[in-house]
C-alpha cells in the first residue's frame, strides 16, 4: 500500500476500533494501577483548610444534589468529606434536593461507617431525606423551624426524637453548608443565593468536572469558600486526608480513577494530533492536485 492509501485507510477507520482502544486504555490501568503522583491543587487545599478550620463538633449541612449519573465523580467526594467530618468529630446532617441524593448519601455512610464504628445514626449523623422545591426548601429552612421542612427523616421517624437535632433551630444553626452538585438545583442555584448571600453562611462543596468552570468566579470572590472539582478534586482530597491526617482508608475510588484519566487523556491527545496531521496531509495532497 502506498503512503496515501495508509492515510485514507486510517482516516476512514471504523469508530468501533477507537472505542476498543479506549476500552483497553481504561481496563489496563484499572487492573494495574500506575501509581502516578497526585499533587493537591490550590482549590483542593483551600477546601481542606475550610473543613479543618471548623470548630470541634461543628454542624455540617451536607446537601447531596446529584443522581447516579454524577456518582462516579461525586460519590468519592462524599465518602472523603464524611471521613474528614467523622475524624474531626463533626455532626453531619444529610439532605437532598435531588430525589436520589439521600439514597446515595446512605450508600456513602454504609461504606465509611465500617471505619468509624463509634459513630451512631441520630447522634453523629442523620439523613433528613429528599425535599422537592429547590430554593423554596432552603428559604423555608431559613425562615421556619427545621422540623416544619423536615418533620421526619429518611427512616420516616420524627427528627425531634434524635439527640443530634438538639439545638438545631433553622438553617442558621449550621456552621457550614457543603453541597455536592451534579447540575442545576444545588450549590450554585440554591445554597449560594440563600445560605451565603442572604444569611452570610459559609458555603463550600464539590461539583462534576463539567460544571467546575462555573464555580471559579465564585471561589475567586470568596462567595464559595472551597470547591472540589470532579474526580481530580476527589483524588487530591483523598491524598490530603491520607498524608496530612492519616485518615484510615482515605485512598478510594478517586485516586484509583486518576491513573485511568491520565492514560485516556494521553490516548485522546494522540488521536487528535494524528487525525489533524492526516487532515493536513490530505489538504496538501488536494492543493498539489489542484
Amino acid at each position, binding site marked *: 500500500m502506498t503512503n496515501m492509501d495508509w492515510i485514507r485507510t486510517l482516516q476512514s477507520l471504523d469508530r*468501533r476500533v477507537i*472505542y476498543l482502544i*479506549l*476500552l483497553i486504555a*481504561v*481496563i489496563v490501568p*484499572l*487492573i494495574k494501577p500506575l501509581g502516578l503522583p497526585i499533587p493537591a491543587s490550590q482549590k483542593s487545599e483551600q477546601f481542606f483548610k475550610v473543613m479543618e478550620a471548623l470548630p470541634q463538633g461543628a454542624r455540617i449541612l451536607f446537601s447531596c444534589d446529584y*443522581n447516579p*449519573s454524577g*456518582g*462516579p*465523580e461525586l460519590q468519592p467526594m462524599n465518602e472523603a468529606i464524611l471521613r474528614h467530618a467523622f475524624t474531626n468529630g463533626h455532626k453531619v446532617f444529610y439532605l437532598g434536593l435531588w*430525589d*436520589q441524593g439521600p439514597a446515595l448519601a446512605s450508600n456513602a455512610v454504609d461504606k465509611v461507617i465500617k471505619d468509624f464504628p463509634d459513630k451512631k445514626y441520630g447522634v453523629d449523623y442523620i439523613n433528613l*431525606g*429528599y*425535599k*422537592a*422545591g429547590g*430554593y423554596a426548601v432552603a*428559604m423555608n429552612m431559613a425562615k421556619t423551624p427545621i422540623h416544619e421542612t423536615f*418533620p*421526619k427523616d429518611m427512616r420516616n421517624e*420524627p427528627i425531634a*426524637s434524635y439527640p443530634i437535632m438538639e439545638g438545631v433551630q433553622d438553617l442558621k444553626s449550621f456552621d457550614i453548608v457543603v453541597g455536592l452538585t451534579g447540575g442545576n438545583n444545588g450549590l450554585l*442555584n440554591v445554597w*449560594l*443565593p*440563600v445560605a*451565603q*448571600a*442572604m444569611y452570610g453562611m459559609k458555603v463550600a462543596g464539590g461539583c*462534576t*468536572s*463539567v460544571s*467546575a*468552570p462555573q464555580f471559579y*468566579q*465564585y471561589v*475567586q*470572590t470568596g*462567595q464559595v469558600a472551597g470547591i472540589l*472539582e*470532579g*474526580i*481530580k478534586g476527589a483524588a487530591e482530597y483523598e491524598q490530603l486526608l491520607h498524608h496530612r491526617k492519616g485518615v484510615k482508608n482515605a485512598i478510594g*475510588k478517586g485516586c*484509583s*480513577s486518576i491513573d*485511568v*484519566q491520565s492514560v*485516556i*487523556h494521553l490516548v*485522546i491527545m494522540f488521536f487528535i494530533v494524528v487525525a489533524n496531521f492526516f487532515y493536513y496531509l490530505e489538504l496538501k495532497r488536494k492543493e498539489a492536485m489542484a
Partner: protein
Amino acid sequence: MGIATLTTGEIVGTWIAAILTLCIFSFLYKDNHLYKFAEYLFVGSSAGYFLATTWQTNFTQYVFQPVADAFTMMAHGGMPIHSLGGRLVSVEPAGAAAILAKLLVIVPAAIGLMMVSMLTKNHGWLSRYPICFLVGYGSGTGIVFAIKTDIIPQLKGTMLPLLGVAPMVALQHLVIILCVLTGIFYFFFSMEHRGPLLGVGSRVGIFILMITFGAQFGTTIMGRIQLLVGRMDFLIYDWFFPLVLRH
C-alpha cells in the same frame, strides 16, 4: 469485596446492574433491542422512583397530612398528641382558625393539579394559572438572587487593585480585568466593532471566550471519561472478579 460477604439480594442486584450496563454498552457496536430495552427500563424506573419519592416526601407531608390533621382536629375538638409509642398523651386545643389554616393547603394543591390539565385537549388553558405562579415566583426570586450572587459580588470581584500589591498579583489582577472587559466588548452590539478600543477589544474577547470554551470542553471530557471509568470499575471489581471469576 468477596462473594462470601455479599447477601443474595446484593448478588442478584449486581448481576442485573452488570447485564443492563452491558446492554447499554452494546450500542457502541450498533443499535439493537437490548440497548432499547435497557434504555426504556432506565427511563421508566427513574421516573417511577422520582414519582414515588416526591409523593411520599412532599405530597403526603404537605397536602394529605394537614388535611387529615384538620379532620382529626374537627373530630377530637383539638389536635391529639401521641407519644412515640402511639399512646394518646393529650389533646392540644385548636380553634376554627387553626383548622382552616390546615385546610388551606387544598388551594395551592388544586392550583398545582391544574398543571395536569395540560394533557387534556379542551381544558389545557387551566394550566396557565399555575404557570403564572411559577413564572412570577421564579422571576421574583431569580432577579433578587442574580443581583445578590452574580451581579454585585462579581462586580466587586473585578474591582481589583493594580497598585500597592506584589507585581505578580498585580499582573494577575490586570489579566482578570482585561479578560472580563474584552469578553464584555464582544457582546456589546450597539456600536460596530471597529477601532482600537471596540475592534481590538472584541477580537481579544473572542480569543478569551474560545479559551474559556476550550477549558470547559476539556473538563467535560474528563467528566464523561469518569462516567466510563465508574462503570468499568463496577464491572471489573464489583461484578467480574467477585461474581464471575469468584476471586
